[in-house]
């Protein structure tokens, strides 16, 4: 009996089939705010029904179970090799059980061997810390919303965006405009100001590990997050791009240092089916508590 394997399969199952509480609250609020009798309201009602059905049947909320992104916060001397192997076993098993779609395609041949294992799948980020805590977070991020992410380089002349927070604001709002309904809104933005191209996108996704209703501890970024959220919801794109009051459920912005020559603003777009969960594991590798 492999306790870690069981814990990881359960993490995958629950991440795939159950919307976390903070996201569900935000979706319910947006349903209440939407104008009655509109197709936007109908869309949110179907979404609400879908959330309930997926949880009850323990089946995927969305058929695109997406990229499989693990984030492991571990003590010094933690055995990363064994846990990587066990993560991969858990993914394979979860796929057999139908918690994950057969989602990993060879980029040269187009072949899909049905296991969800391959170069880059799953992705496991290890972060070592000086406490004894072991936490494993999982994000399942679908392809539709992944496709409407964007990385801007400032200054962006066409958007009249300079190398300042106003310039960042302009390009982030442009990403929302370009996405329209294609990211399955109402969506959530994860943004990184700075970094090289890889760090930019990586840090933008780390923003999704924050609670949806938290506030940024940096007052400059907090103001920017609130402003972009309010402005985006005035654009009238709405759920699914049907027109409506809620285009975004949240905006989360982080920063990384940059080179003098580069100024990237990396925007990751997360769909309403925001599948993100986590567990704290006890010394026996069993689930001690859920994080979201």
């Amino acid at each position, binding site marked *: 009996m492999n306790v870690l394997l069981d814990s990881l399969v359960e993490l995958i199952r629950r991440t795939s089939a159950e919307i976390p509480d903070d996201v569900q609250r935000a979706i319910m609020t947006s349903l209440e705010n939407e104008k009655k009798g509109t*197709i936007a309201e*109908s*869309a949110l009602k*179907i*979404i609400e*029904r*879908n959330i309930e*059905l*997926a949880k009850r*049947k323990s*089946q*995927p*909320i*969305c*058929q*695109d*179970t997406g990229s499989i992104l693990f984030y492991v916060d571990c003590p010094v001397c933690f055995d990363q090799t064994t846990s990587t192997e066990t993560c991969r076993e858990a993914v394979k098993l979860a796929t057999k059980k*139908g918690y994950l*779609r*057969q*989602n990993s*395609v060879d980029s040269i041949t*187009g*072949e*899909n061997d*049905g296991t969800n294992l391959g170069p880059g799948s799953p992705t496991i980020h290890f972060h070592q810390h000086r406490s004894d805590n072991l936490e494993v977070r999982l994000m399942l991020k*679908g*392809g*539709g919303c992944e*496709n409407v992410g964007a990385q801007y380089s400032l200054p962006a002349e066409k*958007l*009249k965006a300079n190398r300042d927070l106003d310039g960042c*604001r*302009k390009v982030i*709002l*442009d990403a929302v*405009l370009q996405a*329209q*309904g*294609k990211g*399955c809104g109402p969506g959530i933005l994860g943004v990184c100001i700075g970094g090289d191209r890889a760090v930019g996108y990586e840090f933008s996704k780390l923003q999704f590990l924050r609670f949806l209703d938290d506030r940024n501890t940096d007052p400059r970024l907090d103001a920017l997050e609130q402003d972009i959220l309010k*402005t985006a919801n*005035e*654009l*009238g*794109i*709405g759920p*699914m*791009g*049907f*027109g409506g009051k809620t285009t975004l459920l949240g905006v989360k912005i982080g920063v990384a240092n940059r080179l003098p020559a580069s100024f990237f603003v990396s925007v990751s777009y997360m*769909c*309403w*089916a925001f599948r993100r969960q986590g567990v704290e594991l006890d010394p026996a590798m069993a689930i001690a508590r859920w994080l979201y």
Partner: protein
Amino acid sequence: MKVLQAPFTEEMMRSLRVGDEVAINGVVFTGRDAVHKYLHEGGALPEGVNLRDGIIYHCGPVVMQEPDGGWKVTAAGPTTSIREEPYQGQIIRDFGVRGVIGKGGMGERTLDACGKHGCVYLHAIGGAAQVLAECVKRVRNVYLKDEFGSPEAIWELEVENFPAVVTMGSHGGSLHRDVLRTSQEALASRV
């Protein structure tokens, strides 16, 4: 709520307007990236796949095999349609397709083909995989699964009360074009 009962006729499709909420009863065939590229490059439609007066569904379902060899759809929401824009108009024309179910909308070429050939774009709710899986009453067959893998195969699905919204009609109307324009204007006054 308008009921679209198979057989799907041109007259039925031309009676629909942008914004109409519909419930679809009948057979739909899934087809996404691999299938569209394959047909565009002259690939033969497998025998048994009848797209004439039919509906294509942009979808890669999660399907589990039953002990008796049959199939059960356990998740079936739409994929983003715009990726098929280079191919869709031609496929509507060549195969006589009456409806395309997907999400996120499509572009001017597909809109044009809808007008010319009496077809509409039916927007299903993105991510509503369980609600839509419940609308699949039976998996009748699957084609090209070995070649393209399960999500990219052509799944022949019998659906009942499948909800969708007409967002591109056969008379030149497109909700996506309208929302793009109004959102562009709204943004321009806020930056």
